[in-house]
């Protein structure tokens, strides 16, 4: 062990203390065997007893006596008797010195040291078992005083600490861009990895901003705005269509059901995808000149398209085809056009776009070159042509239908047809029918084909429908969400460019900054807009530049908690409602607040509705961020991406299994959140989630398919996190299991009691033992533990790990390893023995207080984005207490964190290390 002078400094939140003693105190836990009779349930019981000891008035912090006076009286004699032997001078074990506390100043500096000492004493890990043991009655007042002292004045305000300005980390940046712009482009996936502090990558102190990241922010801002606002409408313009048969006009109305013909029996089979065109509507038949019309209320000024679906016959005398013209309010628009198709090939004619002003307009359609009404009347008196024979008719029909189907197939293939809009019928096709009518040849609008007897001398016209579509200009309601969320205004006759831009920028910046943008900021952003505008950029492009500026502003990239009066920082003050909204949303969603949170903050009613909001937010799918970011780091589940099991030893491991393992744990965690289960289920739930791949891996046979389903584990070896393949794999080496890593994982993540790393320069075992390590992995490890330097920590870690030895390095069940039978029995320091994973879970669960305390600390660290300090003890204990009274429910954990001062307040007081 090294015994150099203490040097490290750790900074305490109570303002001024510098801990001269701080260094890795955890090592202290391991250098000597832990108490051999006081761990396990017994120790927990004593811990609780210690926690509830009422500090006698004589030793409680009194008004006049300084803390040092009390310490000197109550604690120091105990330390001198039981601790100074090893921790009382410059040669102290692990440099952990308790003798340096000698007055009020050094007492304040020594909080961290005392914190560690408190933990060791309270859990009876110190003094070590081979040393004389103090009586419980001696320990209790010391532990009680330390608990009270470290927690601070229980009647005074809780120190909420101060969270350092945090930039968005990668997950938060991706999610915020997603929610701000309604696009999912995950730009931060290509940012450099965020460093982590205290186990999580949302720690403000550690999240730095190097130029390389700033470059990424700049280019990502451009990409995101581009993706959001340069987009096509996703909804086509409104369409109004009129059935020509019933439209008003000078022509007699027609029978909508009248059809021209039907397909003959025995026609050739149709190509796939083609609906037989059994009936052709006649539509409105113009035997002479005339018009039909409809009145239409135009809601918005703009460009509209007029269309007609029609057919016609050529005049037998003048060889002309019908000419048609649209008119609006009686005035002809654009040029007349000629209908070239006959009844079998009705076609749609569209005009160039036509500008219409808002208001009611009469849209009319007229035939210009037909017979006069008199000529038409005379025509009607002519004898009907001789009827065709059945054979002639059948041949004509077959030819026509074949041609028609071929044309339709071609049209389908080209896929140029506009999709039906607003549920309007796709066209004349498919209009019912089925009546074999004699319409063909009888109506004036047919008979253009073939060499039959001559038809009417002048052209005739049939109109199926006519329609108006528009306005063609994209309106907001037709645009994608991303556009509608951002481009909330456009310049118009009544809105200037400047006004529209300002409206957009104000709205956008207020959401991006997660609080209302102030006038000064808006003014600066509008300077950016003005520069782009005066350089001749079109409206969207000039707005684009201003929006990019928002996305690289520190007010967006950092989660600002501004000091109201930076000149005189207030010690403890409550966060604004907007700041609280951000704390909530980044905690539970790793993203910005949504509209509901903003609305409550604006009204100043968020704080009053916190619990309801937390419940709502946990139900929201966005709370999956908790799984990804909290569980991913707490459980180190993110490491699943990087494990490389040796495929020689574990040929069954592949990408599908890697994914399934990860998914199992994610679904499991999510179930505890969504069903608001007890957090103790993390230890020993009797259910999990598997798909066929994972079920096979687990030796379950009844599950099929790729989808995950919940399965009961009642009575099984598996249950809880510890036996999930993901955790078992990330704590293994590529080629074999590592009981050490598994044990370390449990201590670190479930009990917040990480053992220190191996001390440097452990002598080779063979030297001391004069023997090669031989035997099973377990036997070799037990030889290893013969080395006393290794023994203390490894007794604990290896013991836990051995209980899981029935699970191989990829988490599959096994009964032997390398031909040797697995021995999953073990004894923990303290004498608690167990055999296999089920009993291990029971032991862990019996120490549920420590687990809950650990989880509270981890969740609070994640929620706040700062490490736990000694003054957080009251907050942590308070939350743990409420949880214990409420069945350790997950929701209680979250709600109590959100309710805590640490979450809701901020301490502006200067602390050591501040610059």
């Amino acid at each position: 062990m090294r015994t150099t002078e203490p040097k490290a400094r750790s900074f305490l939140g109570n303002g001024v203390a510098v801990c001269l003693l701080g260094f890795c105190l955890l090592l202290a836990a391991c250098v000597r065997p832990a108490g051999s009779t006081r761990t396990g349930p017994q120790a927990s019981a004593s811990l609780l007893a210690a926690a509830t000891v009422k500090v006698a008035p004589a030793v409680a912090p009194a008004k006049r006596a300084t803390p040092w006076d009390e310490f000197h009286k109550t604690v120091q004699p105990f330390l001198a008797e039981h601790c100074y032997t090893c921790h009382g001078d410059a040669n102290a074990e692990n440099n952990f010195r308790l003798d340096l506390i000698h007055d009020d100043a050094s007492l304040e500096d020594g909080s961290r040291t005392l914190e560690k000492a408190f933990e060791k004493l309270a859990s009876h890990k110190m003094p070590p078992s081979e040393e004389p043991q103090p009586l419980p009655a001696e320990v209790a007042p010391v532990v009680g005083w330390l608990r009270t002292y470290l927690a601070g004045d229980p009647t005074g305000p809780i120190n909420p600490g101060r969270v350092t300005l945090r930039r968005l980390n990668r997950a938060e940046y991706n999610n915020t861009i997603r929610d701000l712009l309604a696009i999912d482009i995950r730009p931060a996936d290509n940012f450099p990895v965020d460093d982590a502090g205290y186990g999580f990558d949302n720690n403000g102190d550690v999240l730095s901003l190097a130029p390389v990241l700033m470059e990424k922010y700049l280019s990502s801002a451009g990409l995101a705005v581009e993706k959001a606002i340069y987009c096509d409408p996703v909804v086509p313009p409104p369409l109004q269509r009129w059935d020509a048969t019933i439209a008003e006009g000078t022509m007699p109305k027609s029978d909508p059901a009248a059809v021209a013909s039907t397909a003959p029996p025995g026609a050739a089979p149709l190509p796939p995808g083609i609906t037989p065109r059994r009936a052709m509507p006649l539509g409105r038949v113009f035997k002479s000149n005339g018009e039909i019309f409809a009145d239409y209320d135009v809601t918005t000024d703009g460009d509209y398209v007029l269309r007609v679906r029609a057919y016609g016959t050529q005049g037998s005398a003048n060889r002309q085809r019908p000419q048609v013209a649209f008119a609006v309010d009686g005035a002809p628009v654009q040029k007349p056009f000629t209908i070239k198709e006959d009844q079998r090939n009705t076609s749609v004619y569209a005009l160039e776009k036509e500008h219409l002003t808002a208001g009611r307009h009469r849209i009319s359609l007229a035939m210009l070159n037909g017979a006069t009404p008199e000529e038409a009347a005379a025509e009607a008196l002519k004898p009907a042509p001789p009827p065709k024979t059945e054979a002639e008719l059948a041949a004509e029909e077959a030819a026509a239908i074949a041609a028609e189907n071929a044309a339709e197939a071609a049209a389908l293939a080209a896929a140029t047809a506009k999709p039906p809009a607003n549920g309007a019928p796709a066209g004349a096709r498919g209009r019912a029918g089925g009546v074999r009518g004699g319409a063909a040849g009888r109506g004036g609008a047919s008979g253009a084909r073939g060499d039959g007897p001559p038809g009417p001398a002048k052209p005739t016209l049939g109109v199926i429908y006519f329609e108006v579509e528009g306005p063609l200009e994209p309106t907001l309601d037709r645009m994608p969400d991303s556009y509608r969320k951002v481009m909330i205004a456009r310049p118009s006759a009544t809105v200037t460019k400047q006004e529209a831009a300002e409206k957009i920028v104000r709205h956008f910046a207020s959401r991006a900054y997660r609080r209302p943008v102030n006038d000064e900021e808006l003014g600066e952003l509008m300077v950016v807009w003005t520069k782009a505008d005066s350089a001749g950029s079109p409206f969207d492009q000039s707005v684009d530049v201003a929006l990019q500026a928002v996305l690289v502003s520190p007010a967006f990239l950092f989660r600002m908690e501004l000091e109201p009066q930076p000149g005189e920082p207030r010690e403890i003050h409550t966060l604004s409602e907007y700041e609280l909204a951000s704390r909530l949303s980044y905690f539970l969603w790793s993203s910005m607040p949504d509209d509901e949170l903003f609305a409550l903050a604006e009204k100043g009613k968020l704080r009053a509705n916190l619990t309801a909001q937390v419940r709502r937010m946990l139900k929201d799918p966005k709370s999956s961020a908790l799984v990804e970011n909290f569980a991913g780091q707490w459980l180190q589940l993110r490491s699943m991406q990087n494990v490389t099991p040796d495929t020689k030893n574990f040929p069954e491991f592949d990408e599908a299994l890697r994914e399934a393992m990860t998914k199992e744990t994610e679904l499991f965690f999510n179930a505890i959140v969504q069903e608001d289960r007890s957090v103790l289920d993390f230890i020993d739930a009797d259910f999990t989630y598997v798909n066929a791949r994972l079920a096979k891996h687990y030796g379950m046979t009844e599950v099929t398919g790729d989808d995950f389903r919940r399965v009961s584990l009642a009575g099984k070896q598996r249950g809880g996190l510890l036996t999930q393949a993901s955790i078992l794999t990330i704590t293994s080496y590529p080629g074999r299991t590592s009981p050490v890593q598994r044990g370390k994982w449990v201590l670190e993540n479930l009990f917040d009691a990480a053992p220190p790393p191996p001390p440097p320069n452990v002598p080779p075992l063979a030297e001391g033992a004069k023997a090669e390590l031989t035997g099973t992995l377990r036997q070799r490890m037990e030889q290893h533990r013969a080395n006393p330097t290794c023994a203390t920590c490894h007794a604990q870690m290896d013991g836990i790990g051995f209980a899981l030895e029935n699970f191989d390095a990829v988490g599959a069940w096994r009964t032997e390893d390398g031909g040797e039978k697995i021995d999953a029995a073990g004894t923990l320091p303290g004498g608690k023995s167990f055999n296999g994973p089920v009993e291990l879970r029971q032991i862990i669960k019996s120490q549920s207080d420590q687990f809950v305390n650990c989880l509270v600390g981890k969740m609070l660290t994640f929620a706040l984005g700062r490490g736990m300090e000694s003054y957080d003890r009251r907050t942590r204990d308070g939350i743990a207490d409420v949880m214990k009274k409420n069945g350790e429910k997950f929701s209680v954990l979250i709600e109590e964190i959100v309710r805590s001062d640490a979450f809701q307040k901020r301490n502006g007081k200067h602390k050591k290390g501040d610059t």
Partner: protein
Amino acid sequence: MSQLIMSRRTLLRGLGTAIALPVLDSMIPTRLYSAEAKAAAKAVAAPKRLAWMYVPNGIDMQNWTPAEVGSAYELTPTLQPLAPFRDKFSVVSGLVCDKANPNGDGPGDHARAMSAYLTGTQPRKTEGANLKLGLSADQAAADKIGHLTRFRSLEMGIEEGQQIGRCDSGYSCAYSHTISWRSDTTPVVKDCDPRSVFDRMFANGDPLESAEARARREANRKSILDFVLIDANRLEKNLIYTDKQKMDEYLTSIREIEVRLGKAAAEKIPVPDGAVRPDFDNRAGTRKLGGATTKDNYVVHLPLMLDLMVLAFQTDLTRVITFPFADEQSNQTYAWAGANVPHHGTSHHQGDPAKQAMLAKINSYHIQQVAYLLKKLDSIKEANGGTILDNSLIAYGSGNSDGNRHNHDNLPTLLFGKGGGTVSGGRHVRYDGIPITNLWLSMLDRLGAPVDRLGDSTGRIALA
């Protein structure tokens, strides 16, 4: 109303699909920015460069250190791949990184090794609150000569963030992930995505973009940067203590980018013939992160990064590069090198010959990669008749000596290149007990960027 759909902003396109850069055998004219730089170039005929390459977890020293000192030494097994460059490098033994020792701070030799290596400073032990270290040698160089090139320095890497959440014994991950520190509170994050490095180096936009469109884009960019400077300065007034410090980081980054864009606008740097944007497939389906290196694509990314180092020096985009082969405590596995074992775990070999052999294989693989880099650097001739390697000084080593002992004396160190003819290689030298920062000072001297002190430096080392 304005037209809604408009031409999209042009983006840098992928420039090719080949994986490796072809050997660049043509001499690329030296390209410089300012008159000052041009004058400086005339004096030395070719720019000098510095680079530091770092390997974590120490070295299997018995296969590393040559038995003899002087020029007649015999290459050890691990150093064999360097035989072709024997005259262009020296083995330096005996240097010390004392600030990586506990000095009262307890465990954490890995985090300290990486952070103290270029700074010579004891990192403050904290998981986050109040990070404190010191200026690193590369950043000291960049402070002096960074203005001559578009990038004052390039921080490249290969492995990022593979330790989830927790790093070494109460030290923030920033310490065990970063060798380059811009100030005592600002780690300079490394770029570990080969595509990203390439794009940043050659982000000149679309070659088909019109001059007018480019001018508009640059004007917009400038207007945005002007805005954020005002914005950040105003916001800073409402911040206190560490919050203010974070805003300073922001402002420093913005200013640096402004300068760089100014240089980029002044001169376009073409992609050298034959060089292409790195292209590769990450393991399909499982990685959510774009270009990040995973354990099994390390072997693909590493040579790509080395190619980019060559490219950066060749085009004189920067003269200062740092490149850690992995983070301290890296548990990268090296299956392709016959060592499918976690690096850190194996480095604690406890004298087990099998583990030591594995460690030697990992060491050897890294040295082979260095040889690949040297070959490229030595194949590109420059205006003064030397190669890039001749005009550079590149240090390679670790802040741990024996990974099992975590000792920080007798560090494994190699010094490549001839520093523009001021250094002759081909020797094994010993400087027992001398701070390694003394070597860094001497390197800075050769670059023409002398500084008085660096961390625990006590003087200079005679680089003959």
